[in-house]
Each structure stands twice: as C-alpha cells, then as structure tokens.
C-alpha cells in the first residue's frame, strides 16, 4: 500500500482569538502550532494500515518553511517520508491548494508509482473549507468518501464508515481512492524519543510552487461578538452548592 496523507499546520489558539493589526491573520507570536486535528488522525490511520499490510506513508503539506515541524511530527508518528510545498506564509484558497496537491501527486506517481489511497482531514481547523480533498479526487478521477469515522482496506477496496444519526452509513470504494477522515477515527499515538530521533533523518523533499490569485478571497477577519462575557460568581468551594442548586431551579433543570 502506498498512502499519501495531506496535513495542514495550524496555530494552537488557546483561550482567545487575537488578530493582527491588519485583520488578515491571527496574532500567532505567542502561540504554538500543531497539525490540524482531523489530519493528525489521518496520519495515524495511514500508519496503522501500512503497519498491518506493508507499504509506505508519505506526508504532504502546503505551508511556510516552519511547517516542516508538522512533517517531522508525522514522521515521528510513523510516516516514512515528507513532501513540503513551501509557501511564503500567505494562505492559499481551496482551489489553489487542490491544484498544487494534484500537480505534486502526478509528479510523485510518475516517479514512484501510484498512491493506493490519499487521505485528507474532513476540514482544516482554521479555514474549514470542506472541499480540498473532493477537488483533488475529481482532478485525479478517483472516488472520494468524506467524514469517515471508520476505515478498513482489503482486496483493493476501502470500506468507509460515516457516523450519522442513529448509526453508521457504509461506503465501499475501489482503490485507488481518496478519503477524508474525522478526529475520533482513532486515537493518535504519542511519539517515543527514539521515534523522534529517527524522524530527523527521514527524507523530506521540498519545492516552492507559485501561488495563483485566489477565487475565494479573504478580505478581513472579524472576532465575533460575545467573546469576553463576565461570569456571575456563585461562590467559592463547597459552600457554593446551595446557590448552584437555586440557579438550577430557576432555569428549570434541577430534576
């Protein structure tokens, strides 16, 4: 099995959204960064399939030079190699992102053989565009199932499970295929120290694609109203219990 997982570097936002002065981005000077959660599970899912069936997991990201950190994290968690499309940090819209990924997949496949499976997160934590994986699937002429909470691969078919009210919907896709997964499909491992060390020497290829003009153009970001409420303190410690129960009675939930 050859599997490609596409991941995105996003800030760990903490308790409050703070914008840069030009309202074009989050102020990230004091923030750490991570792999967008659904994609973190995508890496884990791909690594588990390859551990079980053999093969290779490649991890691709489109992002600034610093996004190599997220590639290395993926390599520490079991991926074999990285592909880094290096940007200047400006955000790419979904169409441009998909086009850059498609171009890379084509080049990778003509050099190293086809990917049986390409894995995305259902939507990125920050932009939440819900579409890059679908666009890539169409451009490559491959089937896609989205929002997966279960995935198993056997006999050149992917059995895909989606959580829906009351149960699960099942799809059966012939390989090669594209899937997008949700957090909760697995519990990603924590990398061991030796695994982190090994990740340093795994190969990462990089290139610098040109960003086309966006068709979905961000004009500015806005912090929604409601951030910064002041809670009414009902009390301190166990002594607050009567006031809490009174509040529950007032709003009609005390049972």
């Amino acid at each position, binding site marked *: 099995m050859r599997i490609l997982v596409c991941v995105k570097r996003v800030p760990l*936002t*903490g*308790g*409050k*959204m703070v914008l840069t002065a030009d309202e074009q981005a*989050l102020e990230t000077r004091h923030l750490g960064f991570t792999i967008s959660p*659904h994609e973190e599970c995508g890496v884990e899912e791909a690594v588990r399939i390859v551990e079980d069936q053999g093969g290779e997991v490649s991890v691709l990201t489109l992002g600034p030079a610093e996004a190599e950190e997220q590639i290395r994290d993926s390599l520490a968690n079991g991926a074999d190699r990285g592909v880094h499309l290096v940007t200047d940090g400006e955000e790419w819209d979904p*169409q441009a992102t998909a086009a850059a990924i498609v171009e890379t997949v084509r080049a990778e496949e003509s050099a190293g053989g086809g990917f049986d499976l390409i894995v995305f997160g259902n*939507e990125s*934590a*920050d932009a*939440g565009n*819900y*579409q890059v994986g679908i*666009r890539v699937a*169409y451009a490559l002429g491959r089937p*896609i199932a*989205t*929002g997966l909470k279960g995935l198993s691969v056997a006999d050149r078919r992917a059995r895909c499970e*989606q959580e*829906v009210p*009351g149960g*699960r*919907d099942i*799809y*059966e896709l*012939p390989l090669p295929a594209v899937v997008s997964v949700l*957090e*909760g499909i697995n*519990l*990603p491992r924590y990398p061991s120290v030796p695994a982190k060390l090994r990740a340093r020497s795994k190969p990462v290829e990089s290139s610098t694609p040109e960003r086309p003009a*966006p*068709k*979905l153009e*961000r*004009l500015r*970001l*806005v912090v*929604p109203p409601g*951030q*910064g409420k*002041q*809670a*009414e*303190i*009902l*009390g*301190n*410690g166990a*002594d*607050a*219990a009567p006031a*809490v*129960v009174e*509040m*529950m*009675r007032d709003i009609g*939930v*005390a*049972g």
Partner: protein
Amino acid sequence: VSVVVLVEHESGSPDELSLQALALARDLGSPLHALVVGAAVTELGAYGVETVHVAEDDRLSTYAPAAWAACLDQLIDRVQPTAVVAAGTNRGNEVLGHLAARRDLPFAANCIAVGSDGTVTRVRWGGSLLEEARIDSDLKLLSVAPHMVEAAAVNGGSASVETLDPAVDEADLVVRVVEHAETPSAGISLAEAKVVVSGGRGVGSADGFGMLEELAGLLNAAVGCSRVVTMAGWRPHTDQVGQTGTKVAPDLYIACGISGATQHIAGCKGAKKILAINSDAEAPILSSADYAVIGDLAEVVPAITAELRKAQSS
C-alpha cells in the same frame, strides 16, 4: 437572477437547517428554486420557494454525493441561477464540494450573511472567528452555517412542483451508501441532552469522572469532556464536546475543570447557560460562562450532588 437551494428532508419533511439556508438564499435573489432528492417536499412555498424540482430515480434511493451534485448541475443548466445554496451539513457541504469540483468554481462553506456587493461572511475555527470574503465567480456556491441564520416563513403561496429526470451516470454512483448499520442508543445523547456535565484536564483521571457521572445521573444529564480528556484516553471520542467533537445546545452546560480553549467553546457555545467550576478564577472559560464557582471540583461537585439530592427528596 434565480437562486437554487438544495433542500434536505426526512420523508418529505424539510430539515430545519435547510429552512435556515432558504432564509439566507432569499437575500441573494429570486425566484428561489429548490432541489429535493427522493420525495416531494410540498410545504416550501411558505419559505419563499417558487418551484420545487424533485429528482426521483431508483438509483438515488440511497445517498450518493456525486449523483446529487449531478442533479444540481443539471438544474443549473435549466434555470441559470446566480447562486447555489445548501445547508452547512455534512451532506450539504459535501455535495457543494462535488459541484464546485465538477464546474471548477469557488465554494464558500458555512456562510452566515451575504452583502449587497456579493461578499460573504463565513465562519472559521468552528465559529470562533469570522471571515469576510469575496467569491470571484458569476455563479456563487455557498453553504449556510448551522444555527446562525433564523429560519422564517414569508408570505409565499404554494410552490409549483416539477420533475427533474436525473442525468446520472454510473461514475456518479460509485460512491453511495451501500449499507446502514444501526447503533444501539446508550442512554441520553450528548447532542440532545437538556443538561451536560462535562469534564476537562482538571478532573485529573478517568476515575475522576465518577463524580461527574453521579451528578449527571441526578440531572438526567449526558456526560461530556474536552479534547484533552479524549487525547489522554480517559473518555471515548464520542463524549468529546468541541470543534472536532460534538456540538451541544443544552439548557445548562456544566464545565468542570475545563480551561476554555476556543476549540472547546466552539462546541458548547450553543448552550443557553454555562456554569464553570474551576480552581482558577482567571481561566478563559469564565469569559464564556454565565455562572462560575471557584474551587476544587473534587469538593464542589460532590457538594452540589449532595445539595441536589437533599432538594430532590424534600
């Protein structure tokens, strides 16, 4: 300047989120055309729909995203709309993603408003941040973020119904639901509970959730948790409230030992009231909560449970 709206339904009764999508679509132009797949939805006239196009075909008896997108594609050719709108549901976003890919058009997911100049406001970070954006296309594709736009009836008559004979080919049916597995329900569901008792890092361990379970039992509440808790393996992901977990809307959300990261608030801000129990009076959760108790939750939670038991027995 007609507008096409994908209306999802349950046996002919329109989904609330699709009615919200219709409300936003009315700001984009008229007449409104609705596409429904599988069964006629007749009550849409009251929501401003002029024509309901019904795609009925045995091959559409189970959900197939590409086939639904093919129906929209066909309807675009028929009514030449300036916009195609869907609810920002799993299926709504998926089908518009397919349509966008088929036509190589931009698609703005989870919008909450449209401006007169064609700009949209959409949600990022599960609603913790908003973005004003321009869609550079004559035909605009957009979905409507759930529970951000009020569904409202207008003085509309009854909608006319037309049949859409779907031009669906085999390639559009490769990805379709082939099986549905029922999951036996286990108690009160998180998404529908009137009260949710939720725990974060401050609970300290998987065992620590015992006292939350006890309180939840008295309140007919569901037990939830933060992402930190599921990542630590203390609770299953199905219990997680947040941007990448379940979004809840109870009458009361009790956040025990939860710091209040935006990722978590995105999942519980739909609650009518939030009570935070936290040892840190400076925790970010206090600026999202209506009420707070400052203290060690290992003392506060059992005290509330005891007080409630006393009140319920008297």
